[in-house]
Each structure stands twice: as structure tokens, then as C-alpha cells.
């Protein structure tokens, strides 16, 4: 689509053309400027929340929490890309929900063994994405959801969202070495899970 908000090679929300001024106005208390930014980046936040939580409802809850929290915290925004700032807040909101779910066994997240994990309709995100690529995404998303929580969180934050080890360590309250190990083991496990689909990864 000509009006697709995403670059064709990386279906990530690109910054708004007037983002700097919108952010400035939002920091100054302009509600409509904040709403515009929140609307623009909601799919970035939701994608992260969904990958961390593996559940559409919880992911929507986490994204909603994150947007409201961001609204309250916008006065303290200190540079960096707005997307990264919002994603850090979303990661925190998702992580809170995940921990709460872990503490309450009755509301445990559905385990990957109980049928196929719920997957978003990726074709709806970008209808023109070629079949092989969306097939690859589908397999990747499914494999991510089969990782143990610790490994999935580390791999999602680091490999999917480009956070560095230090950020992941702070977010998950873990030691740097632990984070590295989780990421490496997570990638190895993903490779095993995707062993039958290696052809999808040949670039």
C-alpha cells in the first residue's frame, strides 16, 4: 500500500515527520499532541507486549497501561527516540503483568503446549508482504512463544527490539551474565525449534 506506515523491508513504525515538535508539545502538556504520538506508536507497543505476554487481551491491557503511564510521565521525558522511550515503558508494563500472572497460578498464561499459541493476523499488518516472509514471521512468533519466559523476554527485548544487555538486565532485574546466557540459550533453542524451516531464513 502506498500509505503503509512501514518501510517495506522492516515493518516497523517510522517516526512521524513532525515528531520532534509533537513530542515538545506533548511534554508541554498538549493532550492532542500526545494522543497523536500514542496512536502512531500503539502498534509498536502492542507488538512488544504481545511478544512478551503471548496473549492478545493481556497485551492490549499492558499497552493501555503503558500509554496512560507514558502520559503521566511525559514531563520527565529526556530525549532519545520517542519510540524507544515508549517501548521501555511498555516492556515494564508487560513485565509487571507477567509477574502478576506468575504469582497467581489461577490466571497463568496459557502454556504453549495447550494447542497452538494465539497468533495475530500478520497479513493484516501489511497485505502486500510476500508469502514467504509472513510465513517466516509466523514460524518465528510461534517459536518465540515456546521459549521459557526468561529466555523469551531476553531475546524479544534484545533481538527484536534492539535493547542492549544492560537495559534488559535493568528491566528484568537480572545480572548481566544471566541476561547474556538467557539470550544465547534462547537463540539456540529458537534455532532448534525452527530446524525444519531453515529455508525461510536464507537471505
Amino acid at each position: 500500500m502506498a500509505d503503509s506506515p512501514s518501510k517495506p523491508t522492516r515493518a516497523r513504525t517510522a517516526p512521524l515527520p513532525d515528531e520532534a515538535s509533537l513530542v515538545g508539545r506533548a511534554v508541554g502538556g498538549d493532550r492532542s499532541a500526545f494522543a497523536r504520538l500514542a496512536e502512531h506508536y500503539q502498534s509498536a507497543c502492542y507488538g512488544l507486549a504481545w511478544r512478551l505476554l503471548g496473549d492478545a487481551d493481556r497485551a492490549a491491557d499492558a499497552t493501555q497501561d503503558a500509554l496512560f503511564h507514558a502520559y503521566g510521565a511525559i514531563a520527565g521525558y529526556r530525549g532519545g527516540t520517542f519510540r524507544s522511550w515508549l517501548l521501555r515503558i511498555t516492556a515494564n508494563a508487560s513485565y509487571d503483568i507477567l509477574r502478576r500472572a506468575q504469582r497467581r497460578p489461577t490466571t497463568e498464561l496459557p502454556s504453549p503446549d495447550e494447542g497452538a499459541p494465539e497468533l495475530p493476523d500478520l497479513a493484516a499488518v501489511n497485505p502486500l508482504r510476500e508469502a514467504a516472509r509472513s510465513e517466516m514471521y509466523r514460524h518465528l512468533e510461534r517459536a518465540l512463544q515456546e521459549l521459557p519466559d526468561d529466555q523469551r523476554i531476553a531475546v524479544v527485548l534484545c533481538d527484536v527490539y534492539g535493547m542492549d544487555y544492560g537495559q534488559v538486565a535493568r528491566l528484568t532485574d537480572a545480572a548481566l551474565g544471566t541476561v547474556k546466557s538467557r539470550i544465547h540459550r534462547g537463540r539456540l533453542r529458537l534455532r532448534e525449534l525452527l530446524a525444519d524451516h531453515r529455508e525461510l531464513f536464507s537471505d
Partner: protein
Amino acid sequence: MQHHDRHPDDERLAAFADGTTVATADHDLEAHLAACPRCVAMVDDLRRLQASLAELPDLMPSRPLRFLPPVAAQRDGQAAALARRLFAPVLVAGIALSVVGGAGGLASIASMGASGAAAPAPQLASGEERGEPAAAPSAAASRDAVVSDNGASASADGGVDAFSAPSPSQGSTLLLWPVLLGAGLLLVGAALLLRFVRSPRAG
């Protein structure tokens, strides 16, 4: 084939593939990779896997989200902030007025009792003592004081100079002290109410 018994640990390979750790300076590993297609393939897989993860697209939320907190909630927040700011000053003003009113009332009753004209006030005075313990010692101390002493203490509090006429015009002072006390107690009550404005919503 020839290296099968001596493949490096998978996590070591993953760290090498990562390219950001000390393992990049792992010369033994490099020597092994130079002769081991199996391990080269694994490093290659892991790197392509990372590239694919970095491409995963943003996802549209499963349900419509709000981009701004409801205005009512925001007003609640502002009301709570205002209540927090006002609590201490209102409480202090209320206590100050109660002390002045109570002490002045007791003093004037005492002086009227001395001149043999105190009829309706004593009940009110004892009520004042119970309602405002801080006033009790000073009231007791000034029980024998003359009206002019009391006028001096009132002007020390500032702002009541207009009422602190030392002349024994008892008709107006009789009215003044209960009014001051009443206003003070109302302010104390208002301060306590302000306290309640935020506590139920915080929970």
C-alpha cells in the same frame, strides 16, 4: 566429521555468533570453525536468526485503545494534588484560629466572671477546652489574665489586630471569640476532609 568429538559448547558458539562478547577473540574457536562446516552452519544460522528477529513487524492492537487517560481521572489527579498541597496550611490555620478563639474566649469569660456578669458562656468554654487541647494550657494560664494581655497575644498571631481592642467592649468580643474558634474548628475539619479526598482513590 573429523571434529565431531570436539565441537565447542553451543553457548560458546552462540556468544561467538553474537559478536559482542569476549568470544570474538576466541582463537581456538576460530580455528575450529575454519575446519568444521557443522559449527560454521550453526553460527550462520544464529546470525540469520538474529537478523530475522530484528525484522519482526509491529502489530495492530487486538482491540481499540485509548490514547489519553479519561479527563475525569485526570481531574481526580489534579484534585488530589490540590488537596495534598492545601492540607498542611489549612490545618495550621485552623489550629491557630482555634487557639486564639479558645484562649480569648476563656480569658474574656474569666474577666467577665471577675466583674460578675458571666451568664451563657461557661458551657461553651468547657467545650472549647475539650475540642482543642492545644488551647487548654494557654487558656488555663490566661484564666486570671486581664483582657489587655489577651489582646497582646492575639496581635502576636498577626492579622487579628483589628479585633484585639484592649478596651473592655465586651459585647463585640463575646461574639468574636466563638466566631474565631468556630472558624478554626471548621478549618481543622476541612483539612481532615481534604485528607480523605485522596486516600480512597489511592487504594
